[in-house]
């Protein structure tokens, strides 16, 4: 009880703020209205009736989808920075952990871009603003992992995560993917153990969410590594050592050769079983017929993962006095921005039949 009041002193205000933000997340009926829009101008009018308000009011016509996405992300970033500016330890650290995943994404984006000799400034613009750090632009210079680590990453909080992948010699697409997975695995494990130090309600909620995140990565890595050069031993090394599939599910996945084996490995967890219900059927019936069905199955899987993520994040709001709400809010808002972009894209390209394929939140 005492701890409860103490959290209230430190974080009660921010929790209130974030719950207020959360009630601004678009609802089913607002999505229904949005999907009826004929043009992006309608879309803007409709959004101005929500918490987004006049965020597009000063944009000159015609609107583009990327502007909408950019502005919506900017709102999230502003809110996040406000939270971060008002946070005290350990919430501050927690919020920082949230940004790490964006930093990883940015780093990978920059490395890949540099590898393919893209324009540096264009790359920098595409980086997620939550994951920007000071010395990030210098990443474009590095050509080897060693150099990358020595020149830039060593001073970022991500340095410990990269230590494990310094052995990778030259940068190519596969290696970058391996780096991403290794780093992300280290990040998830670190975040997981950090949440363990935060005491009961936070630990409970966050570890549930992170466990799912880890499982999702594990399954994705497995599915994506079929028919690639990635050896099974290497694959096993990329799996995070947390999550509900760990350890025996992970072991099975490490040996899996096709999607049916993946499904068998996931049988043990009842929630994951349903993910493969249709996907499994369609892929087994069309197994030898080519990669297209596999692709469809994978995208359907991805969709279900998103749905599950939204569900878990919504659950985080059911408990008070814990930090999970901050993480969940950011993730939900991110999903909302994805939804908005999807709907806007559908409107712009006049693909009305697919407009319903977003993932409703509330």
């Amino acid at each position, binding site marked *: 009880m005492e701890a409860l009041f103490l959290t209230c002193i430190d974080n009660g205000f921010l929790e209130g703020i974030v719950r207020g933000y959360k009630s601004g997340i678009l609802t089913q009926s607002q999505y229904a209205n949005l999907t*009826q829009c004929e043009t992006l*101008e309608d879309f803007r*009018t409709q959004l101005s009736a929500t918490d987004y308000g006049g965020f597009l009011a000063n944009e000159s016509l015609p609107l583009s989808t990327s502007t909408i996405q950019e502005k919506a992300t900017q709102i999230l970033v502003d809110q996040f920075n406000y939270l971060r500016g008002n946070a005290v330890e350990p919430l501050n650290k927690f919020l920082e952990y949230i940004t790490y995943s964006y930093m990883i994404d940015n780093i990978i984006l920059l490395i890949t871009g540099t590898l393919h000799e893209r324009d*540096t400034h264009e790359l920098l613009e595409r980086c997620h603003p939550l994951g920007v750090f*000071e010395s990030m632009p*210098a990443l474009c210079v590095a050509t080897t992992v060693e150099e990358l680590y020595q*020149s*830039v990453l060593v001073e970022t909080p991500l340095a410990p995560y990269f230590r494990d992948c310094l052995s990778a010699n030259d940068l190519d697409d596969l290696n970058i993917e391996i780096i991403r997975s290794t780093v992300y695995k280290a990040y998830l494990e670190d975040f997981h153990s950090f949440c363990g130090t935060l005491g009961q309600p936070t630990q409970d909620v966050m570890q549930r969410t992170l466990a799912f995140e880890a499982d999702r990565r594990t399954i994705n890595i497995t599915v994506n590594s079929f028919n690639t050069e990635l050896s099974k031993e290497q694959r096993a090394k990329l799996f995070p050592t947390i999550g509900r599939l760990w350890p025996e599910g992970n072991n099975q996945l490490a040996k899996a050769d096709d999607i049916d084996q993946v499904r068998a490995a996931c049988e043990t967890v009842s929630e994951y079983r349903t993910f493969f219900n249709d996907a499994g059927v369609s892929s087994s019936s069309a197994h030898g017929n080519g990669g297209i069905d596999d692709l469809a199955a994978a995208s359907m899987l991805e969709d279900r993962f998103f749905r599950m993520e939204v569900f878990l994040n919504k659950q985080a709001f059911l408990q008070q006095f814990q930090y999970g709400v901050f993480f969940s809010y950011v993730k939900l808002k991110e999903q909302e921005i994805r939804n908005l972009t999807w709907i806007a894209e559908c409107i712009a390209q006049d693909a009305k039949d697919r407009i319903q394929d977003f993932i409703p939140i509330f």
Partner: protein
Amino acid sequence: MSDDYPSLLRSERMSLVQLFVPTEVAHDTVHELGELGDVQFKDLNPSVNPFQRSFVGEIRRIDDMSRRTRFFDAQIEKEKDVVPVRPLYECAPLLTVGPRSAQTVDELDTTLSQYESKLTTLNESYQTLSERTRELTEARHVLRETAVFFDKAHTQTSNIRSSFDDSATPLLTSHDDREGGYSAGSFDLEFVAGTIERSRVPTFERVLWRVLRGNLYMNHTDIAEPFIDPSTNAETRKNVFIIFAHGDVVLAKIRKVAESMGATIFPIDANADKRADALREVENRLEDLQTVLYNTGIGRRAELVKIGESLRVWQDVVKKEKLIYETLNLFNYDVRRKTLIAEAWVPTRDLTKIQLALRHATEESGTSVPPILHELQTSKTPPTFHRTNKFTEGFQAIMDSYGISAYQEINPGLFAITTFPFLFAVMFGDIGHGFIILIAAVYMILREKAMAKQDNGEIIGQFFYGRYIILMMGLFSIYTGFLYNDLFSKTLHLFHSGWTFPDNSTRGVYTGHTYPFGLDPAWHGATNALVFTNSYKMKMSIVLGVIHMTFALCLQVPNHFRFKRKSDIYTNFIPQMLFLQSIFGYLVLCILYKWSVDWTKSPVSPPSLLNMLITMFLEPGKVDPEKQLYPGQGFVQTVLLGIAGVCVPWLLISKPYLAWREMHKTTGAGYVTLGNGEETAIARHSTDETLEGEEEGNGRAIAEGDEEHEGHDFGDVVIHQIIHTIEFCLGCISHTASYLRLWALSLAHAQLSEVLWSMTLDGRTDPKSIGGWIGLGIMGFMWLNLTIGILCLMEGLSAFLHALRLHWVEGNSKHFEGGGYPFAPLSFAGEGSKEA
């Protein structure tokens, strides 16, 4: 009752009217009604999405126009030298009604877009030019600063060389070659020079240090003046850096890092002469560019000045047009008959005015089809509209912020005009302080016109809004100040005192005549002054409180009559009144009686009224003869207590009983309640809607679907009455005690002002030396500031707050029902001042 002349006692009588407006006059009609500001339109398409309504296209166009005006506004604001913007009232109005209205708006639209594109091109060229200028300035800085580096390096190299010469000459064979190489001034180091943002310098240096594995020779200096981005006005400060390195790979790496960190690199020659040439060239080009830039700036400014001349009119028109189309979207659009059907609440009194306005609109628009207005019968509750003027506005606002009174309910705002300043003044009583706030109020009232026009800011604006409240508070404070005989904690000796103090005695002797008005000045400075004023003010607070509550309770009666609830008079009003009077009314009588008795001549000592009230409850009927106030007290108190005791069950039971009997009667007569369950209600709702669809043309009220369901359940009545009874009975006690705040604040105020006097001016008012005069000056200044700051402002605000509470809680709880909704007419006037 109040149909002839607008009164504040009750809100205005309202009518629901239906308007049939032909499409071609719709715009002008709404414009006219907006100017009138007396009509509240109802939304007739609540289920329609905002972007599916009839006039969405127009609104979108207006939105774009308003975006353009905002753009101009932002541009004008950003301009460094102030661009004059002509205020709205000095501009020629742009006519947007009449047959040419559509054309005017079209023209405005094109004008706006023309100006926008002109301004954008100008901005763009200005920006590219200033970008070039910035680059050149940076280049100049780099050239200058690197020259310093090189000069330093030169002296160093020559030093090195000379020392090198001394020790190593014998060993060198190709001495001459070397000598030649050095004297040419090109030492073998290659370098990168450029500018970078100052905040990035440390990161830049760190990254480079790591990339070059510690082999870094970097120099950097600050550029003194900041660079200003013309489009955002943001300042950036930059540094010149120069990095010496050797080898192509390393140099390329440095360049890449520098570029990715947002630095600008300039090709600099190592040769001093070439550098000087480059500098000269850069300076020439910079000069040319600056002339061009200046001219562009002038052109841009001229354009902005032209925009500034009519910007306010455009904004006004755009705002009005937007409001008009938003209002038109509330109307029901009948496509077949080309008419718009509107429903609106209007004050019944103004119906003719509105008719006139409609006729005027028709004439303006130049068509012969007038809009048709007719009144509808409705069972819905109209909005509450109190017609206020500048004097009553503030007082009404005080009450409205507590709750909007129900339609045609007795309006407490009317009585607040006197009770509010009075209760305030009881707490604030001081002639001097009252005078200060009176002066402030009079000043604001005299400069009313000027101050209303300017923007007063949030705080001054608040005071200005309440200037008439302050005026009344000042007047009443002066009055109570005379009652307390208190002027900046000193007294006035207006009449002969009723007491004399013979031969330096501290004991006063009564002279036989009473001080005619207010407190006798002899009390001032007496040792028992505080005891006396405390007792006096405390009793006075109770008396005032009970009077105020009794009055508030009486305001129930006209409401009961108006809303045809006569039974409430004897189920609510009479028991409540009896309860209040038999306890606290009696207390007030006792206070007055005790005041009227000369206790020095009485055989018994004065009894404590508080104890009397307590024993009245604890030991009914028993009165200690030592503490008796008057003979027969025990009996009277028992009777009163009995009455109060009876009132509680009376209040509790009578109303539910009546409701139950009523219900019994209806069910007994064979009627059954309809639409009790949720489902039937929904079903009825939907049939209503379909019916309306059919009857639309017949002139029936269209949006009558959402009938107010007043299902008075018996259970609700019982619970409501229980709560009401408990609240009232407990409230009587706590509210009476609550009025003691009048005493507490008044006491605090008097004491505070006395302390302030004794801490600053006491004993200094008759200075003998220069030091004394200076002391008087300083202390007098302090005293005046603290008097205004603490005693008038802070104490005044606190007294205001408590007066507010006494009205909201103690007064309003006795009669006020609230639950109305305010009349919000379509009006251009309010909209204009809000954003301008």
